[in-house]
């Protein structure tokens, strides 16, 4: 395992700040080890063959060439290695990320956020203290109501939106994000958290993660979305639970006495 960490240092991985990030990096390392073995093996053979069988040295070619079933072994070995990686790692690991029965449930007390992308910014909506979102419907969607919230729903009252492009989540607590988009396809990618998900208009796609390191991380848009694609940057701040509570109370209070309140 130390070796894996050493390889990671060599491969210029970005810092990891989420629970599942380590397994992802490990997995990438395993795949690259397989690739490196194949490449180095074949490449060494290749150079040797070029050197040994050059015309000057070996003027008469052999009609039969190599008598070997090495290739079969090599191909079977590659296949076996791929199957192992696939069955034992890739499939189960992917399932932990997307399967709905792997999502945190009520007893994990996750924080749920709704994120809607637009050209070229990220909007985030929090359920507030009651943990319940107001009803949403596309028919309410308007330039000043990007989530299409029903303002008459009682659950809407304590919902709040964080400032555009600036999201906050607590560390060491599961977070669920429901991701959508207003106009074109965007892609919500936070490299240190090792999460990536397309935001597709018309769909609401759930994702989940658990940040384990406090800090400020960049939200990258990873899907071409127009001329502002390169500047569609957001920040996600991972706070301790107590700092997060403070922030939440703060912003909720602010929302009350500004125009953004939904009363």
């Amino acid at each position, binding site marked *: 395992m130390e070796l894996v960490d050493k390889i990671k240092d060599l491969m210029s991985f970005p810092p990891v700040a989420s629970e599942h990030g380590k397994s992802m990096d490990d997995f990438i390392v395993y795949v690259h080890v397989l690739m490196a073995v194949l490449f180095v093996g*074949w490449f060494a053979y290749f150079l040797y063959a070029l050197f040994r069988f050059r015309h000057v040295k070996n003027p008469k070619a052999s009609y039969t060439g190599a008598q070997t079933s090495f290739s079969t072994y090599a191909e079977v070995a590659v296949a076996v290695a791929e199957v192992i990686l696939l069955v034992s790692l890739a*499939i189960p690991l992917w399932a932990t990320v997307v399967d709905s029965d792997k999502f945190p449930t009520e007893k994990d007390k996750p924080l749920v956020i709704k994120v809607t992308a637009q050209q070229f910014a990220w909007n985030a909506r929090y359920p507030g203290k009651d943990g319940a979102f107001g009803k949403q419907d596309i028919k309410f969607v308007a330039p000043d109501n990007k989530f299409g919230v029903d303002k008459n729903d009682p659950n809407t009252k304590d919902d709040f939106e964080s400032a555009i492009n600036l999201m906050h989540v607590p560390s060491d607590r599961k977070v669920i994000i429901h991701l959508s988009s207003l106009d074109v396809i965007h892609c919500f990618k936070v490299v240190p958290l090792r999460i990536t998900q397309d935001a597709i*208009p018309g769909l609401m796609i759930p994702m989940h993660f658990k940040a384990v390191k406090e800090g400020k991380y960049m939200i990258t848009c990873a899907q071409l979305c127009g001329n502002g694609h390169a500047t569609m940057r957001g920040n996600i701040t991972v706070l301790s639970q107590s700092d997060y509570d403070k922030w939440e109370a703060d912003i909720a209070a602010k929302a009350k006495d500004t125009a953004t309140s939904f009363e």
Partner: protein
Amino acid sequence: MQTAPHIDIQHGAHEQGHEDLGFWRTYIFSTDHKVIGIQYGVMALVFLFFGLMLMLAMRWQIAKPGEPIPFFGPTMAQIFGDVAAKGIMSPDLYNTFGAMHGTIMVFLAVVPLGFAAFGNYVVPLQIGAPDMAFPRVNMASFWAFFVGCVIMVASFFIPSGAAQFGWTSYSPGATTTPGDGQTYWLIGMIFLITSSLLGAVNFIVTIIQLRAPGMTWFRLPFFCWAQFVTAFLLLLAFPPLETAGVMQLMDKLLGTSFFLPTGLFVGGNPADISGGGSPLLWQHLFWFLGHPEVYVLILPAIGMVTEIIANSIRKPIWGYKSMVYALLVLGFLSFIVWAHHMYLTGMGTKISTFFQATTMIISIPSVILLTCLFISLWGGAMRFRTHTLFALAFLPMFGIGGLTGLPLGFNYSDILLHDSYYVIAHFHYVVAPGTIFGLFAGIYYWYPKMTGRKMNEALGRVHFWLSLVFMNLIFMPMFAQGMAGMSRRMSNGGASYASDDGVIGLTVEAIKSNTSISHAAFALALAQIPFIINFFWAMQKGEKVTSDNPWDSTTLEWQTPTPPPHGNFDKPIEIFRGPYEYSVPGHPVDFVPQNEPDKKN
């Protein structure tokens, strides 16, 4: 033996009995597969150059965002107007160039060169046919291609500029972006697709029906096999993109919402559409073509490389039959892996496991192809001519590109790597130092057949070594950039994601390597100069070939006069053996052409 080189440079002798068709029918509206092949080749090289220029402008912008482009800046400002004001590339123009670089390289340069140009010129000769099965359809195919090219190029000069939404043209973005560039793109694509379909039908019929007597399936040169499978990929994978293109065109022109969902916003306001469409439908139809298309890019190149390696090592290809089977399996599987480009569109475990599994399975036939070529080298007597160098370099380059497809093919690692420069590096390794090297090899190898003259070896070597070095200096660092989290299609090279005031994003080093990559790209462009000089110089001044078969090759295209006359073969032709009978024991020369009768019978 009677393979005494059949020297014949007096072309006149072959033209007897052919009516004189005049300039237009002979060189422009020709139905001769060789002329059409060359027409495709010329167009494709022009567009390869065009794609290269677009890339250079982009690389400048990536390395030095916001700085005016040297030399070409003022001209660009004139042509493109506001989007290139003062010679500075705006994000709009960057997106245009990016989309068109991809489109042009894929559909207007590499496919026409590998599949259409070499296919047209070489396949009928290699199977011993007088021409393609439908010469007039062949001409129609070229002219449909030509119209498509004209529309694509014209779109640069309309006020709103060319398409901006990547070569993948994802809806809703591609539909809702104002301007007509996308409309032109779609109409152009419909012509290109029609051209490819006609071409594909023609190739398949030619290979099935017009093989000379004795040319059984397992005596078919591997290049023909590659073209055969490629033609099927085009035939069956392209129509769904045509469908999707028509639907996107309807969305664009008639206000339908095939790919636009209910509740869509455009420019901050609710869109005036019926809604009810599906953005993912476009992606499925696009990638249903998209993945087979990447094999369309690579297979002709593998075919050429196989021919050239067999010729250069002077021995048969090891495992020819298993290569053929691998090719067929590859062709089949390429239809059911497409959604590995869409792992992050919200796929669940079941479907992504399916596509993951097929993606892993499809890498096995590629491994078989490469392994057979590698093992073939054993025991050879290798002559390193320029075409050999390019063909040999193809192998490890394709190897790197193919291997880096694996971490993308596993969905769990794709989460980090998706749409990053890792992807860019992956596929450029397969298409640039891979396919393009294969195509260069083909050009150097078949040039004497087409022109009667050889290209210069010294210039060729300069071209090769510089290209090899700079290609790697460009694309190798991109893997690191991608791993570090740099996204693709960034008009400022990721500058807005630089780590600052404690926000963790892209590292400074990752962004800095943009500069060195761009320098390598400019150097790569300069390294093409010897090639361009060589290409034109050799036409007039190159060393004349003294034999119809200057590389002592076994396949049929070398058993015709140089260049081959209308109708190709001056006598009926019959085939007696497999394609790579080099260094047959007991034979006085080290090659036995396929049409040389067996002595014993």
